[in-house]
């Protein structure tokens, strides 16, 4: 009896000592390291994304910190952020600094594939999970690379984006499609997927060409596209490409029954203001939060409405997809640390798998595959249509997401 009691006491003391040790070793703050582009090509989207992440950190700290399951308590968040000025060489050096000098607990990538690319080998080398916000290049998630240290928190890989669009074109019976794309990873992979998907659906791709990223005049190429007599023209490029394309199309006097460009989904107001209402009216695009609003489905974090209200109250500017992506990354980090039983990178990555497919945030369903690529979210097709509040990009396909009836063929100019 005495021996049993002594054994229990010993075990109890050991457990107490162990748990006290665990408390004692918990960090005073959770360091989240990230980069943003304060200038250069990616500045606009990157700073918005960073604003979203900062807002999340501010909210979390106002609640007493991030709940870390491994330590059983809330710990304040400390954001460590550097400006990479849209330069990949500087970004690589700064990611290195975040990992080796600042010794951050969580590593969050900058905006887009180009600025994310240099973080991937570093994260792999140092065995730290990279929370990839918007780097959607398919080559980051190749099974043969066996890289478990990356998680795409938001958008699906870019090659998945046009799948709904291909179904939409099939549904409306478009048979002659012209595809024009800027020579970059993001645009090229969308164009390739659309071409492949359309061919599988029996459509005829009558025009398929690329242009340099810096293209600012589409007048000649628009006439060449017109010569192929397409029913649909899909142009994939960065914002500057879309804007120049729509401006040139508007002034060309040409007419295509449908025009699709991707960037209104990402920065609708920017594109609308640049090209004007007349040029953007009836244009098709993807639809992503905040233009598509997940409110009823959300089971983790605030709804989009609640987020927008809180963000505006804190003095934030208009919410766009980048802001949502930044905030959403914070939510995924939050869920990861609330789930991971130990405070190691391997445990965190495994924790992501345990809640993948089970949480729905303001950005959509969070679901990643074994390689960390986002598979839960999809991008519906939208169209810029007149509403009582002016022109808006509204979801029109698939029908379960639609809030308006699409207009196709679009009215002539």
């Amino acid at each position: 009896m005495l021996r049993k009691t002594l054994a229990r006491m010993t075990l109890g003391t050991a457990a107490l000592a162990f748990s006290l040790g665990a408390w004692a070793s918990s960090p005073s703050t959770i360091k989240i390291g990230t980069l943003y582009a304060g200038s250069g090509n990616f500045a606009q989207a990157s700073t918005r994304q960073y604003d979203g992440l900062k807002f999340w950190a501010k909210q979390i700290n106002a609640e007493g910190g991030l709940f870390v399951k491994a330590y059983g308590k809330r710990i304040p968040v400390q954001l460590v952020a550097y400006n990479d000025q849209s330069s990949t060489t500087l970004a690589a050096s700064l990611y290195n600094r975040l990992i080796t000098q600042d010794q951050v607990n969580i590593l969050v990538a900058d905006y887009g594939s180009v600025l994310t690319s240099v973080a991937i080998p570093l994260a792999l080398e140092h065995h730290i999970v990279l929370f990839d916000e918007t780097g959607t290049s398919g080559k980051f998630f190749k099974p043969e690379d066996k890289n478990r240290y990356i998680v795409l928190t938001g958008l699906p890989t870019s090659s998945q984006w046009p799948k709904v669009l291909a179904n939409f074109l099939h549904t409306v019976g478009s048979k002659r499609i012209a595809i024009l794309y800027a020579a970059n990873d993001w645009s090229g992979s969308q164009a390739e997927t659309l071409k492949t998907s359309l061919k599988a659906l029996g459509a005829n791709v009558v025009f398929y060409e690329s242009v340099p990223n810096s293209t600012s005049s589409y007048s000649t190429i628009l006439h060449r596209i017109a010569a192929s007599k397409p029913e649909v023209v899909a142009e994939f490029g960065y914002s500057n490409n879309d804007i120049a394309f729509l401006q040139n199309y508007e002034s060309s006097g040409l007419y295509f029954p449908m025009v699709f460009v991707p960037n209104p989904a990402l920065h609708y107001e920017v594109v609308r203001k640049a090209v004007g209402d007349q040029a953007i009216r009836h244009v098709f695009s993807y639809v992503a939060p905040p233009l598509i609003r997940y409110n009823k489905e959300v089971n983790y974090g605030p709804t989009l409405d609640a987020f927008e209200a809180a963000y505006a109250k804190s003095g934030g500017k208009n919410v766009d997809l980048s802001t949502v992506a930044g905030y959403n990354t914070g939510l995924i980090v939050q869920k990861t640390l609330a789930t991971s039983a130990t405070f190691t990178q391997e445990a965190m990555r495994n924790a992501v798998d345990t809640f993948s497919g089970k949480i729905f945030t303001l950005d959509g369903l969070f679901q990643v595959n074994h390689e960390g690529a986002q598979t839960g979210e999809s991008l519906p097709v939208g169209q810029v249509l007149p509403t009582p509040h002016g022109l808006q990009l509204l979801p029109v396909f698939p029908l379960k997401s639609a809030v308006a009836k699409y207009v196709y063929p679009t009215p002539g100019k």
Partner: protein
Amino acid sequence: MPKGWRSTTLIPVITLLAFAVLPHLYNNQFLLFNMMMYMALAQGLNIIYGYTGYLPFGYVGFFGAGAYGGALAITFLHWSPYLAVLAGGGAAVLLGMILIPLFRLSGAYFSIASLAAAEALYYVVANPGLEPLTQGPYGISLPQVYDPNGAYWTMLAILLFSLIISGVIRRSRFGLALSAIRESPLSASMSGVNVVKLRSISWLLSALIAGLAGAAFGWYISVFYPETVFGLGIGVFTIVFVLFGGIGTVLGPMIGTLILYGVYNYIGISTPEYFQLAYGLLIMILVLFLPNGLVSLARKRGLNVA
């Protein structure tokens, strides 16, 4: 050993010691790697610009050619990264040979034509039609050879090679001939200097260094896009570093890179909002008060700068 040669030997030795020890004291290896890369590029540019007076705005084209040359050797020929770095240097030399006719131009025309050539190469490499070869705009991924330590020591070897080449040229009859070309190609030619041959050799040496550096850079980061290695910023930085330190010397480009790249990283982190202002002011001061670079300060005091 003559005094001039002594100082020329001392620079590579100090550089070797510094970059061999620094990783043990400072753990941001990539920053040190970048510093070495820009120092090597600055020496490479110095060979063609500092010694012969031809300023190629498109110097980054060699760097990109090297990065892609090395990557293709790894991807298609399954060469070890060390051999692939040499292949990158070879690719840049090949490009340099193709571009030798640019020397029919001079001054700003040569500078702009080299820039156009680098841009043309960028668009060729990024062309989706070349996806089976260069991966087009989708970029290169080399996770199978990722080895930052190997790439670091390789870059140090490239830097030492560039310093030795630059130092030897500066102290040799070859360098003297190049200086004559810089002052007046016509007079040099009339004095018996084979202008075309010597200028081409220095051009190809310059290309080789940039190509080796580009290949080592591509190996280090292992995932890159065409815009990453053909970005004009790399060329602009190199030119500014060389000008800041002082052209036509071995020490000048080293000091220029050390100070300006150091400032770039310090201000970029501490006060990024003032970075462009500070950098711009620094360059304005240089142009106004030190047009011959920092080494001119030493020369004014009668010091012989290596």
